[in-house]
């Protein structure tokens, strides 16, 4: 399908899906950028900021696809929507830990590794499916994103496996992070209330199929590093695909849009 051949209900489903994926990358990329200068060592600062930059680029691609569908300018979509208009999963908006990047940041590296690794695994599954999306421009964007995501997944997998097989303290902290992420990771794995229309339009595989791929992969990886499988991933704080969010999203959006919002008409 192209922009011209989309039926109205297919277009609505496509728009919903693009917001979900764009917002997921956008907000996690922002959380990643807050780590700049605070990562465990300088090479990780280089790597993590590079990954965040790529992911912001991915969000930008999705927002541009939305712009092409008449949703408004990509920059405005990123900066001027209210929190309830965001469709990202709740676990991706969560703060990195106590403090802020300016004041006493006591960020949790285990949480960063677990959240980013679990997300990268799912993102890979999503992109694999999108390569065959019925909407041509989305399939093209997915192929582009995959070439970069390949390095991200590899990066987080190395951190995850090494810390999970490291010292007792590392293992204990990683397990606490897994427990925390698991409580809400179901929110990443869902396509939200428009699920049926999204799948019917052949935009992406069925969420149940993709979820199964993710849980299979997680079971295998956790077994490999000697950890137990925590069972069904949950969605304890609600479904971000419905526009349900925490104050953490509000805080993130107000920080990242602070400059833009002073004068949206200016070319930033």
């Amino acid at each position, binding site marked *: 399908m192209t922009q011209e051949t989309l039926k109205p209900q297919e277009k609505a489903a496509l728009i919903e899906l693009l917001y979900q994926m764009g917002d997921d990358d956008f907000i996690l990329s922002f959380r990643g950028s807050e780590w700049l200068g605070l990562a465990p060592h300088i090479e990780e600062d280089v790597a993590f900021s*590079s990954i965040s930059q790529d992911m*912001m680029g991915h969000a930008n691609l999705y927002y541009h696809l939305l712009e092409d569908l008449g949703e408004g300018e990509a920059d405005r979509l990123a900066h001027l929507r209210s929190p309830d208009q965001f469709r990202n999963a709740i676990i991706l908006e969560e703060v990195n830990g106590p403090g802020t990047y300016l004041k006493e940041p006591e960020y949790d590296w285990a949480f960063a590794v677990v959240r980013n690794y679990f997300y990268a695994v799912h993102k890979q599954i999503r992109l694999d499916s999108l390569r065959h999306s019925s909407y041509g421009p989305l399939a093209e964007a997915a*192929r*582009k994103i995959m070439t970069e995501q390949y390095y991200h997944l590899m990066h987080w997998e190395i951190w995850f496996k090494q810390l999970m097989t490291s010292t007792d303290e590392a293992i204990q902290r990683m397990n606490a992070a897994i427990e925390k992420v698991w409580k809400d990771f179901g929110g990443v794995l869902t396509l939200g209330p428009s699920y049926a229309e999204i799948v019917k339009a052949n935009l992406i595989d069925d969420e149940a199929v993709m979820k199964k791929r993710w849980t299979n992969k997680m079971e295998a990886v956790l077994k490999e590093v000697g950890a137990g499988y925590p069972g069904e991933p949950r969605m304890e704080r609600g479904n971000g695909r419905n526009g349900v969010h925490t104050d953490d999203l509000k805080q993130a959006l107000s920080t990242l849009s602070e400059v833009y919002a002073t004068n949206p008409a200016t070319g930033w």
Partner: protein
Amino acid sequence: MSEIKNSMTDTVMDALGDVKDPEIASVSILDLGMIHEVEVTDGKAKVSVLPTFSGCPALHIIERDIKKALESVEGIESAEVNFVFTPSWTTDRITPEGRERLKEFGISPPPANHVMGEPWEIDCPYCGSTYVTMENIFGPTACRSILYCKSCKNPFEAMKPVADMG
């Protein structure tokens, strides 16, 4: 296409050869294989460009520089730049000249035919040694990695291989 248009396209290509990657001053966007198509009709040039990495902050600068270069070509009144993703930019699009110029800049060019997931051989751009270590697969820009040559004891960079993943 008429001969006049053909010769026009050659002039356009020459002008594009002067547009450099803002982050690698010795290499042109033509050398990097970023130019997909150029069309000139009635003094209007249309260029489709393949972005290297999607978050590349240099894209706006590249767009501006292409316009500037083309609009100074005699016979071209305006130039339009479109970024497209099909075909995907892959590192095998870098020309042999581009590969040499990357080395001059201290960047080892990516392998010409890379299969994603397979090991990747990198030679030192200064001494050609293969006795190198990867310090960081990520680097100062999205497209580069950081390495160290154990033979000539120089730090250097390498362009990450990017191949079509189907």
